[in-house]
C-alpha cells in the first residue's frame, strides 16, 4: 500500500523561523517535501482562525513557529501568541479535536537544523495520525448540505 503523504502548512514569523528555514536551505539539509510555508511578520499576527481554515481546506497538520521567548523582533509578539496557542490548544482538546494536529515550535534564525527536524518530526507525527478525515468530513457534509439546500 502506498504511504500516506500528509499535507502540512507552516505559519512562521519572518524574523526567526523563516530565516531559520532559509538557513536550512543554505546548509543543504534535507527534509520532507510535505510542508508549505506561509510567511507572517510575527507570530503575534497569526489568527487562530487561519489554523482552522487550513484544516477546513484540507491540511492534515499545521506547524506554527516563531522566535524563542525574549527574542521577538517586536519584543512581545511571541509572548502574546503563546497565550493564544495555549488557550487554543486547551479548547481543541476539550472539543475533541486532536491538538497533535498542530505542532508549535520556537526556531531561531540560527537553527536551520532544528527546522528540518521539526518538519520531519511533524510529518511523521501527522502521517501516523493519518488523514484528518474527521475534520474533512465536516466540510464534505457541509458541502453536501449546501448543495442540497442550494
Amino acid at each position, binding site marked *: 500500500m502506498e504511504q500516506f503523504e500528509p499535507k502540512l502548512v507552516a505559519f512562521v514569523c519572518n524574523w526567526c523561523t*523563516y530565516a531559520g*528555514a532559509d538557513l536550512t536551505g543554505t546548509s543543504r539539509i*534535507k*527534509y520532507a517535501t510535505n510542508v508549505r510555508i506561509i510567511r507572517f*511578520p510575527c507570530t503575534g499576527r497569526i489568527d487562530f482562525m487561519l489554523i482552522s*481554515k487550513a484544516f477546513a481546506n484540507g491540511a492534515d497538520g499545521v506547524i506554527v513557529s516563531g522566535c524563542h521567548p525574549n527574542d521577538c523582533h517586536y519584543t512581545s509578539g511571541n509572548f502574546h501568541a503563546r497565550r493564544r496557542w495555549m488557550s487554543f490548544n486547551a479548547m481543541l482538546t476539550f472539543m475533541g479535536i486532536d491538538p497533535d494536529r498542530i505542532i508549535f515550535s520556537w526556531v531561531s534564525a540560527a537553527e536551520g537544523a532544528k527546522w528540518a527536524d521539526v518538519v520531519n518530526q511533524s510529518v511523521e507525527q501527522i502521517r501516523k495520525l493519518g488523514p484528518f478525515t474527521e475534520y474533512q468530513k465536516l466540510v464534505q457534509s457541509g458541502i453536501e448540505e449546501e448543495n442540497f439546500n442550494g
Partner: protein
Amino acid sequence: MSRIGVFVCHCGENISATVDVAKVAEEASKLPGVVHSVDYKYMCSDPGQTLVKEAIKEHNLTGVVVAACSPRMHEPTFRKACAQAGLNPYLSEMANVREHCSWVHEKSEQTTQKAFDVVRTMVSKASNNAALEPIKVPVTKRALVVGGGVAGIQAALDIANTGHKVILVERSPSIGGHMAQLSETFPTLDCSQCILTPRMVEVAQHPNITLYTHSEVESVDGFIGNFHVKIRKKARSLDEDLCTGCGLCTTKCPQKKIPSEFEQLLGTRPAIYTPFPQAVPNKPVIDRDNCTFYKTGKCKICEIVCPTKAIRFDQEDTILEVEIGAIVLATGFDVKHSDFFPEYGKGKYKDVIDGLQFERLASASGPTQGMIRRPSDGQIPKKIVFIACAGSRDPAKGIEYCSKICCMYTAKHAMLYKHKVHDGEAHVFYMDIRAGGKMYEEFVRRAIVEDHVNYTRGRVSTIYELDGKLIVKGADTLLGAQSVEIEADMVVLATAGVASEGSEDLAQKMHVSYDQHKFFAEAHPKLKPVETNTGGIFLAGACQTTRDIPDSVAMASGAAVKVAALFSSDLLTREPIVARVNRIPGPSHSTCVGCFLCQPVCPYQAIEREDIKDRAGNIIKSLARINEGLCQGCGTCVALCRSKSIDLLGYTDNQMHGEVLSVLEEAFV
C-alpha cells in the same frame, strides 16, 4: 482581474537541478489571473531583471511573482526592478523555491509540485496586493541631547567627534549636572569637578556642539531621522554675545541671600548669578522671581555696573525650531529631600540633611569650604549618623527599588567625614551593603576596618531633637533587634534616587514609554538597553534608572554609537507595513467598539484613543487609532481584535486568508 507575470528562476542549477522549472512555469501560466509565465537561468542578473521589466510593460502587468531564492535575499532587487518599469514595488512577490524547496529536497515530482504550490500561493497573494508607498525619509544628521549632566556631556562629545552636529539642551543655567556638585567620587576619592570641568569646557568649545543652557524642550513631532523639535530658550535677561562673564554684576547685586540650588540650599547666591564658578557657559542669568527690579521696578544696579552693557531686562523667551535626526535623553535623576520623611522630622530639623547636601558640605568649593559644619549653627559635628535606604526599598513610600548608588556614597561620606574630623564618630544604619563593582567592596571594607565607621544593621524608626542633639532611635537586628539610641549632632539620609522632575511630561512629549516610577523604559532589558521603543530616541545615564558615574558614561557612549550608526546613511527607508483601524461612515464611524484591549498588546504605544465628537463637541464614540509613525507592523493587535477592525498593510486578512486557501488547492491544475 489581475494581470500577473510569473518568472521562474533556474538559479544556475541551484533550482533547476531538483525542480522542473519549465513545468512550473507552464503550470503557472494556467493559473487564474496569470497572463505571462517564463523561466530563466538567472532572474537576478541584468538580463533576468530586464525580462521582468519588459514583461511588465509588454503585458501591462498588475503583479509580479518571482520564483527564486528567499525574499530575504532578493526581494529588494525585484521590487526595484518593478519600480523601474513603473510598477508599484509592493505589487511584486517572491516565491521561495530555493532555500525552502530545491535546496532541501531531492529531485522528484514532489519537489516540483511543492515549487508550483509555492508559486500558486504567491500568485494568490499578489492578486490581493495593493500598491503601497514605502515610507522613505532622509535622515537629518543632527542629534539632540537632552540634559547636560555627565551622561549628556559624554554622549554629545562622542557624537560630535564622529563629525555630526549636536544640540545639547540643559534646563539649568550651566551644564555639569549632579556630578558637578559632588565632592569626591568613589571608589578612588578623586575630585569630581577636577575630572568633569575639562569635559564641560570641551563641550563649550567643540565646533560641532551647539549648547543651549537655561533651555527646555518644548515639543517634539515627527519620527526617526525627522524630528521637528521646538526648544524654549528661557530669557537669561542679558545679551550673551556681549557678556564676557566678568562677574561684576553678581558681586554688586543687592540681593545676596537667595538659597542656592547648586549648594542644595545650604549656601546663598545673588539674584543675578552663575550657579558655580566653573559654570559653562560662564554667563550669569537673572532669577526674575527674586530680582528687586522685577519685583519693585527699581534697582538696575547690574545694568549700571556692567562694563559691556549686556543686561537686557526686557528680554523674552525665544522658541527655536530645529530639525533633528536622533535624540539622546540624558535627563538624569533627583534625590528625595529630608522633607519626604515624616518620621525623620519632615524637614523641620536643619541638621537632618540628604546625601547631596553632604556632598556640598564636603566639597572644597562648597558653602563651608570643605569643612564639615552642620547647617543649624555651623558647629563641627562630633557624631554623625548616616541612614542608608532612606526611602529606597520602601514600598510604603512608593519606592520598591534599590537606588543602587547609596551604599557606596554613604561609605564615601562616612570616610570623608572621618578624614576631615579625626575625633568624630560615624555611624551607619544599613539593611544590606550592595557593593558590586570594581573596587567597590574593598572600598566599603576600608571604611569599616581602616576608618572605623560603625555599621549597624537596622533601620532607624524615628529622629527627634533634644537640647541641640538629634536623638536617633534604631535597632540592631544582628543583636536580636535590640534598641540602639544615638545622640547625634547631624544626620545624613541616603535618600532614594528618583526620576528627574518633569520626566513624565518629557516622555509624553517624546512618545517614549516609562515605568511606574517615571524612569524611561529601555526597548529590551538586556539586548537593547540604550534604545527606547520609539525609533531614533536613545537613553543615557540615570534617566533610565539610578546609576553611578562609570555606568552613566558607558551608557552615554553606547547611545552615541547608536546615533552615529543611524547617521551613517543618508536615507532611511521604512516599509509601509503598518496597522490601520478601519473607518466607515457615521454613526458607527468604525467597526471598532473601543474596548482598547489592543492597547496593552502594542509594544510601541502606537495605539491611541480617538474621540469622535459631534458638532457640539460631545464625545459620541471613542475608538482606537494607530499612530503610523510609531507602528512597526508586527500585527499582534490585528490578530487580537475580535471585531476584525484592525488590518495590517502588506499582510491583510484578505491576503493571509487567500494564501491559506491557495496553498491547499489541489495539485496541478
